[in-house]
């Protein structure tokens, strides 16, 4: 039995192919203009890696922002359930999943069986999502993946008081004009980002173990700041934190196939 999960987000698309409880392959691509195309491209790459064809997949579940428009998926399941499922499979002791994606942020509480207990989501405001970091990287004229490493070298992180991404951008521009260093600016940004995520986390409460999924999990600066604010050490995955949603999709696909 070969199953797959396909997660089409706002910025990236991921596919995971599994067989007999093992990940055969996974892929991540930047999104194409249409979700159908993103799904096809990422799935083709994952299939190629696993030396398989689309016909070999017994069941595929789609998830994410574009999940309803994936032609080869038999069914779709919300990314909240998929992230919970995927994270729990990777780390069974997980109870809180913080997923920080390209344009939303979700905090998901699961029970000992990985079943969804409660969740909270922000997809209305760019603050506390990957978009906040993107806007800031652009203002600093650096690459998104440079923010984390730069922030770790800061001595006096700048303080960003505005919650709004647009106003925070003005604050950062003013700090640049006043001669603040890149490290201190980067650290101010990762801290501000972590504060925004933290304000969402405290609303559903945090229970260990805690994991962070999504692209922002790769930003060491944000992760470290958030760990300080939450007073927990987050568990790290052995796989790319961006594929957790797609992995959850593949796990649901297996269940669905067996039920059939």
């Amino acid at each position, binding site marked *: 039995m070969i199953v797959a999960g396909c997660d089409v987000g706002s910025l990236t698309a991921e596919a995971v192919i599994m067989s007999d409880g093992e990940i055969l392959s996974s892929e991540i691509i930047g999104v194409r203009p249409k979700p159908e195309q993103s799904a096809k491209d990422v799935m083709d790459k994952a299939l190629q890696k696993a030396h398989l064809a689309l016909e070999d997949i017994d069941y595929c579940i789609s998830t994410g922002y574009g999940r309803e428009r994936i032609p080869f998926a038999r069914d779709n399941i919300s990314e909240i359930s998929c992230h919970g499922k995927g994270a729990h499979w990777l780390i069974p002791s997980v109870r809180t999943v913080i997923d920080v994606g390209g344009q939303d942020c979700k905090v998901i509480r699961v029970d000992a069986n990985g079943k969804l207990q409660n969740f909270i989501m922000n997809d*209305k405001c760019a603050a506390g999502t990957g*978009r906040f970091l993107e806007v800031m990287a652009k203002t600093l004229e650096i690459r998104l993946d440079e923010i984390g490493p730069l922030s770790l070298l800061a001595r006096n992180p700048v303080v960003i008081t505005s919650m*709004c991404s647009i*106003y925070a951008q003005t604050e950062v521009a003013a700090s640049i004009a*006043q001669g603040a260093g890149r490290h201190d600016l980067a650290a101010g940004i990762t801290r501000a980002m972590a504060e925004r995520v933290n304000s969402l986390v405290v609303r559903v409460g945090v229970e260990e173990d805690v994991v962070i999924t999504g692209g922002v999990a790769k930003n060491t600066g944000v992760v470290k700041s958030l760990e300080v604010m939450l007073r927990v050490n987050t568990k790290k995955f052995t796989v790319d934190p961006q594929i957790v949603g797609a992995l959850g999709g593949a796990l649901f696909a297996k269940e669905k196939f067996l039920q059939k």
Partner: protein
Amino acid sequence: MIAAGCDVGSLTTKVAITRDGSIIAHHIVETGFKPDLAAKNAMDGALSKANLSIDEVGYCVSTGDGGKNVSFAGKYVSQLLCLSKGSYFFIPSVRTVVDVGGNATRAISVGKEGRVLSYRLNDKCAAGGGRFFDVLAEALEVKLDDLGPLSQQSKSPLEIASQCTVFAESEVISLLNDGKDVVDIIAGVNQSIASRIASLVRNIGVKEDVVMTGGVAKNIGVIKSLEGWLGVGIKTVPADPQIVGAVGASLLAEKELQES
């Protein structure tokens, strides 16, 4: 008796000079990152237009976000009171002031002689404020001043679903890429911002006459949409709507002179 008002806003700094209750000159400059310098430049500009030197100004009141450190001002007064007094000076029948500036939107309930009865303020989120239009004009490659007139050409305004300025910018760009008409996009944005301003105004209760001030009062599209949402006519002052706060400050400065 000559007095001056200096309103240091987040985006622009305004100086108005009055003599015995009438405006003799005003000047507007961009605030940039040095509010003190902007205040000086705005004052110098206004003085030169009035053919005066700073020594001839009996008293100056400062106001606005950056107005607390204006060297030549004798006193700082809140923007709410200055806007209220300024609006009352131009339109004595005013009961509600809607001020939409660069980084803040204010709804003020005005009592006798321009007193502030109550107010609501949004300075936390760029949605529903002037900054939204800067971002939008840039995305659409249209001049800020053209947004109002262009929106009036629209026959079917598009609906903008995103609240957040950052997300709305992306939405606007995808609408453009989908080949939608620029005038319909602009009209849609005016509608959506006006609806957010309207909910702030409804919070203090809408009493006529309603006067709109601040830079966004130059956008006829927003005024018309706001009239639609609130179900009342909106008046604008017979002067640049950006200088109302500075005029109010100058009138308060004259009062200081009378009382001293």
